């Protein structure tokens, strides 16, 4: 099977097939003699040219990360065979940026009203969690099209709070 993997801003083609003694891996069409063993769910022990790597998968509410040793990489994996459905989702997002709650908490203040024009970096709302107030800012200049937030209501991590177009 073939995947498109975006790591640290670079997109790679990864080709995997089940060989006789485990996985055969190609990275950008280059054969990689990787020895793969799953030690527990979400954790691989990898050997490559004798070097040993412990790799963990981590899915939070808002991110998918791959942790190699103690370095964390944000990862996006696409299966080209499911491209059609993906591109549709992508199209809907064209030009729109969302503000997503980075943690569960409570909305304590709304700083910009729906329909208002906001500058990139301008505070839009304030979420409180663990005794700390955190201002969420506009990711780009534009119109605050949607604002799914009212003061005093709890929010979940990953919840879309606002959209800017």
């Amino acid at each position, binding site marked *: 099977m073939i995947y498109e993997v975006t790591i640290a801003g670079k997109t790679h083609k990864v080709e995997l097939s089940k060989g006789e003694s485990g996985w055969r891996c190609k990275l950008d069409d280059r054969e990689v003699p990787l020895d793969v063993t799953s030690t527990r769910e979400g954790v691989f022990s990898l050997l490559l040219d004798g070097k040993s790597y412990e790799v963990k998968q981590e899915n939070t509410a808002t991110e998918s990360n*791959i942790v190699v040793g103690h370095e964390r990489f944000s990862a996006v994996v696409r299966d080209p065979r499911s491209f059609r459905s993906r591109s549709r989702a992508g199209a809907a997002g064209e030009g729109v940026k969302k503000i997503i709650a980075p943690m569960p908490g409570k909305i304590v203040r709304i700083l910009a009203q729906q329909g208002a024009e906001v500058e990139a970096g301008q505070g839009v709302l304030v979420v409180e969690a663990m005794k700390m107030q955190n201002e969420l800012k506009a990711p780009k200049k534009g119109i605050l099209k949607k604002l799914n937030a009212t003061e005093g209501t709890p929010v979940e991590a990953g919840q879309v709070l606002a959209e800017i177009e």
Partner: protein
Amino acid sequence: MFKKILIANRGEIAVRVIRACRELGVSSVAVFSDVDRAALHVSKADEAYPIGPAAARESYLNMEKIIQTARRCGAEAIHPGYGFLSENAKFARACGDAGIKFIGPPPSAMELMGSKTRARQAMQAAQVPFVPGSSRGLSLPEAEETAARIGYPVMIKAAAGGGGKGMRLVRTAPELKSAFETAQSEAQRAFNDSEVYLEKYIENPRHIEIQVLGDEHGHVVYLGERECSVQRRHQKVIEEAPSAIVDEDLRRRMGQVAVQAAQSAGYTNAGTVEFLVDANRNFYFLEMNTRLQVEHPVTELVTGFDLVHLQLRIASGEKLPFRQEDVAIRGHAIECRIYAEDPENNFFPSPGKITRLLQPGGPGIREDSGVYEGWTVPLDYDPMLSKLVAYAPDRKAAIARMRRALDEYFIGGIKTNLSLFRRILEHPDFIAARIDTGFLDRLLVSGSASAAPSSNGLSDIAALSAALFAATATPAQNGRNGAGTAAGKHHGNGSSNWKRTARAEALRSQ
């Protein structure tokens, strides 16, 4: 010794005290708020009782409910931990009135040390060295006069203060008025008390504190120092013992002053006298914390004593089982406070479910943890998860050991400050012990909070791994992460969770 005590706290410190109880043959009683039913301290204790809703003020700060619970289950004493009610003299008094021993100093000593200005007066009477400044609340004209006398820069502080609130640094005379008024109104809002005072500002001080311990028979000893200069916004982040700049002579002088301070306040049980130390190793009394400190483990490791055992023994009326000359410092200990917060994103707190927890172990590693894999860190309390402590024969080895332990540590599902520690422990100034209370803030403005990613081809490994995880994902994994398994025919093509995440990534704000 007591037969049963109640621990009026949660998290790692509740677990720490419960462990001490078990070791001493004392029954332990936990209390918990509605969101803490599944917390670690509840299942580790011998008994556990609900005390109210999530909001601390209705549960962990609810004196009446806690004392009532203690009475009902027959607990003879209450250990307050740190935070919450631990420095509340009213609570200590209420315990006494209810016939329950408060494991800590007498309320009178707590009250004295709780007021910065009263403490300052008492300490000055006891010949404790002080940062030059006023010893009581000031009016603006008095402040201007004092500042002129001791010289700028000066620091304005709230009399009832703590945690940096109501504090203002003033470098020149024209700035004083506005800073004074801001500090007053901040103090009013934070503590319902607008009284402020003024001190000479020590440039780049180190924060060094002395652990003291007094029994109820008049003996007070000091157990050496801890250096807590690595702070972010006045919150300690890394602590160590001993301090690299404290030698035998300075330790003895600071220790004797700390014992004097404790004795003059009629202090018993465990307490900490905090000092600022300037570049010439002059030390100045800062405040006394009338409770067990978060960072007490580093003292335990270098002295060999168990401070919680000693707290319980002292509170039950025993004499200190050793004298000052029996206290010796051996080796070096470093503690990292592990928080659920995102050092790469303004230290936003990061409550949520801990999906994976791989903890370090082996020689010289101690972990005092309050969490477990699968637990959801609630958003209602302090985000401290755990304290990781490394002990080794010397400072260099302790740093190396802590770095090794951090490499072994993995917390999945929520953000933590583990990467921050790696960066601090690699910093040449930290390694050379060139630290002061501004060290970390300077380090943080100088770049990203996490160690710079190395360019050793790990991203290739990550890319391959990401694909491998996608190829081996099971339907159960997708289900658990919230995505449906409707994708059906599972022939190894990327889990639906990955796809969902990919979309979220693509759309997310930068």
